[in-house]
């Protein structure tokens, strides 16, 4: 049992899914903004 009261495997799954989601959001912002700016600038 994890400290959150969930089964350890279930908690790991939730953490992994949440981390992946936020990493994708952050990466999309980070790279997206750079790529968008540069691609518009090259026109």
């Amino acid at each position, binding site marked *: 049992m994890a400290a959150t009261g969930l089964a350890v495997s279930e908690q790991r799954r939730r953490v992994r899914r949440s981390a992946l989601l936020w990493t994708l959001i952050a990466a999309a912002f980070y790279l997206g*903004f750079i790529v968008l700016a540069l691609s518009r600038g090259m026109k």
Partner: protein
Amino acid sequence: MAEVLTHAEPHDEHDHKPHGWRRWVYATNHKDIGTMYLVFAGIMFFIGGGAAMLIRLELFSPGLQFFDPQFFNSLTTMHALIMIFGAIMPAWTGLANWMIPMQLGAPDMALPRLNNLSFWILPFAFTLLIGTFFVPGGAPAGGWTMYPPLVLQTGAAFPMLIFAVHLMGASSILGAINVIVTIMNMRAPAITLLRMPLFVWTWLITAYLLIAVMPVLAGAVTMLLTDHFFGTTFFTAAGGGDPVMFQHIFWFFGHPEVYILILPAFGIVSEVIPTFSRKPLFGYEAMVYATASIAFLSFIVWAHHMFTVGMPLAAQLFFMLSTMLIAVPTGVKVFNWTATMWKGSLSFEPPMLFALAFLFLFTIGGFSGLMLAIVPADYQYQDTYFVVAHFHYVLVPGTIFGIMAGVYYWLPKWTGRMYDLKLATWHFWLSAIFVNVLFFPQHFLGLAGMPRRIPDYAVQFTDWNRVSSIGGFGFGLAQLLFPYIVWKCTRVGQSVGNRAWEGAHGLEWELPSPPPYHSWTEPPSDAVIARGAEH
């Protein structure tokens, strides 16, 4: 009053922690990483503070005394970059690492290896940044805002600056992901979102802000990089670009950044004032919503930093009014902190002193911010020392005092020992007096027309500059007490019980002092949560 025990408490010696350099280089424990962040922030605070002392030394008298103007401008630029990205932000991440798992009843941060990476990026970033002092052309001197075309004149330091900014941004984003994932997934049962301590709430909102705006800074500096090296003309008027566009993009990042620096201080003050008033926080939910409102409004006020560039009247009105709107949720907070103290049983230990000074002096910074928000008045204040006075009132007795309040509040928990309260009180009074001697005269200088970012000034500004410099030296020297107090605490401080302050509530105070290396490996019981999770 502090509860001090006369004998050492038995502690859990079965921590199985690694020893030697591996404990720190391969650290995945939130307490170790929190400590590293705080030590790093302390080192950067003294390096950035050293630059500030040199600035005040040069400004002690009119005329050029010690430095050429280029080096002086490097000092102001590096002072800002080091203090913002090297001292304040890592200090908050250090406090988040130490406290969020303990306050939520979680065994650690959700992503310990990512935690290690986000810390260890920082020493490389700042070696690169501080290394610019030693390259041809010297350190960046175009201001921390990096406005083109001036910043494009930077010498060999330019790519180092851009890469360092990217590294700092990456570190902050990784830290923010970790905070969000931890808060959303690692809370103990029964710690619902609206039962979380205010420090956790303010950090959650700060983390969202970080993920939203650090990429904007990354995009802006990447465009600077391509303008400098790859022939683009994003910000070069001769090629069809627009230098003012950089200012819009920068401040779209820069204003939320101000709240990234201050929101966790709101959280700490919301922990400290109830403890030393022996009352629950007044209006907990209003505080949460006020914090969220401030964060939202921070996205729609950016152009108040650049009223004088020339923008349509409608835009000026919009940004003026939206900026003034921030006073509403901020006023809610100040009211609630004051109402928490109303009829409380107050005592004035160092964390409370720093929190009270925060309350008064941050409010002064808020008021001068309202003055700056008024467009016609801003035309007078723009780029004067009034602006310098304003943001230093927000960032020094605001953010730095918030960090001091937090460290003095939780240091007995971290070390299991009480620090020298008398010496810490001296630290407070010297800081509180000298910070006003340092920054208050800068209002007068600005209103009289002294421009910022200059090494020389007209003779009529001499007197208040001397007062300001004396305040600066006094404030700088007073800070030397801080590492001594912490060091002395870890060596000879008297042992304290679990609840180092009698009025303290929160799950962290249910743990032993110091907490075991691995805390909350079992979920806290309902009884512990009921006792500890009161606001």
